[in-house]
């Protein structure tokens, strides 16, 4: 078989398949066009920019699964998933505004530079109108500001730092995922119930922006319930062995350890804390406890038995029983043979929300989409009634407080839902000091024209 022949045949075939619906990208501000990457053919392209290499690669792959599913549902393939339960009914399975949705994927490598390079290639080469995905706040902020400058939409994936919709908020960027403040606000009352008000907390914090905002938030909310903060120790990212940070904890007079870590760092610090006997120890006459403010399924799986009984929070979990969740889990589970993770959920929802907003606005112009999303209230996407707040483009919805399950039956239910904290308890004013105060501003929406 000759290789040249082989590729040429492929070329002709695919050329015919997509040629008709050619959507030529126009790049950035180039004058004559209406707005960046205005779709002219019968298709519209979205960009899914997720980590495919590096420590968060699994999360990225799960996001990709969900995004692929969302595109199918929007294009009318499959069972429709959460489109059936979504309170807005404008999406009818014929794509977006009659244009079939296509997507391109890229690798963020969980590095701002690589993520921006990948996003730029999507914008410049593939002509995408919206970028979605990601698994860290640094990347989210970096890509968000790029999308703002380029004049396309950014629908954040997993990003938990307050900054994304705080001091780094942008008009073209929207976040469905919850944030450090909301995690802390939800956890506070629950921790008060289970561990009481007389506790002394020791923080280990990943030494970078997300870690700091997480720590700041949880410290504020635990102090609000009367806890004392003994110490806050910053640990290098990717430290691997946290022993030298863990050993001083028991001597410090603390009786709670709060791990402001994520990903591999959290898996290691939690496992090692358990290894050092912290969960079995008694301090100040009380059982020593560990809290992990932000959980994810993949982290929980990595930490294994060590998470048993450890409290944390999540944006969403497949074990919720509402209609939307059930529809999504069913359609995801049937396609991929596993329940979706929280990061998958948020990417799915963000893609649906974007498609819906475009349809409601009746236009792809990002400024119209922004307007459609701002202040949008919806339900049926798994988190109950939700508001996309206009002031900072943050979604407000209930927050899940989770606990490591004592007796998981499968590899997917090692976390259990302890409480669904109502949205009222986690809401905050848009000019909250942790969110950039009065200075924080979305700026003007940019359509690249």
């Amino acid at each position, binding site marked *: 078989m000759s290789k040249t022949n082989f590729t040429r045949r492929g070329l002709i075939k695919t050329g015919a398949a997509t040629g008709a619906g050619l959507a030529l990208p126009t790049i950035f501000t180039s004058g004559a066009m209406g707005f960046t990457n205005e779709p002219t053919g019968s298709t519209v392209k979205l960009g899914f920019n997720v980590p495919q*290499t*590096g*420590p*968060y*690669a*699994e999360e990225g792959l799960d996001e990709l699964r969900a995004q692929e599913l969302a595109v199918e549902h929007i294009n009318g393939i499959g069972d429709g998933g959460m489109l059936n339960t979504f309170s807005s009914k404008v999406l009818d399975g014929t794509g977006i505004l009659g244009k079939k949705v296509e997507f391109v994927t890229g690798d963020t490598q969980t590095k701002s530079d690589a993520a921006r390079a990948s996003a730029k290639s999507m914008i410049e080469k593939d002509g995408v109108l919206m970028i979605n995905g990601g698994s860290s706040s640094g990347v989210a902020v970096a890509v968000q500001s790029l999308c703002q400058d380029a004049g396309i939409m950014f629908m954040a994936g997993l990003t938990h730092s307050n900054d994304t919709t705080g001091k780094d908020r942008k008009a073209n960027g929207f976040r469905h995922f919850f944030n450090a403040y909301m995690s802390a606000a939800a956890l506070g009352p629950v921790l008060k119930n289970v561990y009481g008000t007389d506790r002394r907390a020791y923080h280990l914090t990943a*030494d970078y922006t997300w870690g700091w905002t997480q720590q700041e938030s949880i410290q504020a909310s635990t102090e609000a319930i009367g806890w004392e903060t003994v*110490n806050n*120790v*910053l*640990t*290098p990212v*990717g430290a*691997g*062995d946290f*022993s*030298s*940070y863990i*050993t*001083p904890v028991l*001597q410090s007079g603390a009786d709670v350890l709060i791990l402001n870590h994520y990903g*591999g760092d959290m*898996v*290691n610090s939690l*496992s*090692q804390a358990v*290894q*050092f*006997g912290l969960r079995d*120890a008694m301090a100040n006459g009380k059982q020593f406890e560990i809290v992990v403010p932000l959980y994810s399924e*993949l982290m929980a*799986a*990595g*930490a*294994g*038995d*060590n998470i048993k009984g450890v409290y944390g929070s999540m944006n969403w979990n*497949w*074990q919720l029983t509402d209609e939307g969740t059930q529809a999504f*889990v*069913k359609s995801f*589970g*049937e396609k991929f043979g596993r*329940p979706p993770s929280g990061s998958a959920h948020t990417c799915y929802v963000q893609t649906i929300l974007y498609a819906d907003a475009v349809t409601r606005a009746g236009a792809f112009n990002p400024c119209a989409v922004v307007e459609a999303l701002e202040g949008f209230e919806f339900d049926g996407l798994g988190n109950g009634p939700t508001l996309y707040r206009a002031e900072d483009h943050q979604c407000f919805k209930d927050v899940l407080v989770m606990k490591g399950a004592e007796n998981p*039956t*499968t590899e*997917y*239910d090692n976390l259990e839902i302890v409480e669904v904290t109502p949205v009222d308890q986690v809401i905050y004013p848009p000019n909250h000091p942790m969110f950039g105060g009065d200075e924080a501003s979305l700026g003007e929406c940019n359509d690249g024209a």
Partner: protein
Amino acid sequence: MDAIILQILNGLDKGSAYALIALGLTLIFGTLGVVNFAHGALFMIGAFVAVSLQRLFGMSFEQIDETKTDFLGNPLKVNVPYVDSWFGPDVGEWLIDWSVPLAILVAIPVMLLVGFVMERGLIKHFYKRPHADQILVTFGLAIVLQELIKYFFGANPIQTGAPDAFTGSFDFGRLIGFDPNVIIYPYWRLVYFAFAAVVIGAVFSFLRFTTFGMVVRAGMADRETVELLGINIDRRFTIMFGIAAAVAGIAGVMYTPILAPNYHMGMDFLVLSFVVVVVGGMGSLPGAVAAGFLLGILQSFASMNEIKAIVPGIDQVIIYLVAIIILLTRPRGLLGRAGVMED
């Protein structure tokens, strides 16, 4: 005082890992003159031998448990490990429980083989090539190895626990006259330290007391002379490469309960172990070990709150800072020989 003793223990533990990796790296530097950027990958493969064995023992068939349901609402399938059904739950559970230490038995032959294949198939063609080429080819190999592991095991860390017997903590303080529960230290970390000491001791005695070792040491000092004596140094070097790989591998196996293995752990350790080797002095095995422990302990001390309060961020840079200071005061590291990798 107790805090300092704890940090010394932490440092010895960290140092054990550094020293074991650096030991293998130095063997390869010293005997073969090859800069092996794939050495971290060997450590990682060792760790995944442990993961594989645990998975192998945990391999199971499905039994349907009608009383429970899975996430889609279907009857729950419960997995029963084959080893349980073959050897009975007692032996089966024991095997699963002890899979990490048992993995050493598997890892030694596997890593020797990996080492032999690597040396014969690739590295030996690079003895006479510039270091730059060695770096490129071993770096390429490291990427390939880690991507293969990622392909089969995913990118997430995989918790691989120590046997239950070793999960608790040992009251080390009481042993040396402290109050109870002041200095407690996890059993497994003490095991790791002891294990490292044994491996290091074994490698040293092997080089010192066997004819093989003497030839290799002579070869490290002056390859040409040994070859003139008609000794087939090549074959011995192949074996040495295998041994270095095995040392890295079993170091990885035993480290899994301390650090949940992931596919990029090799790269994470690579840079650090190079620093350790160079600080110890090129071509010096005792230097590599000494530097490993020295840097481990210093890193632990730098992580103490009292120190961090004075110099913020010192724990982030201490290893590099110490490396710079040592290399400037001692041109060839702690115990390096002249002329090794100086050009």
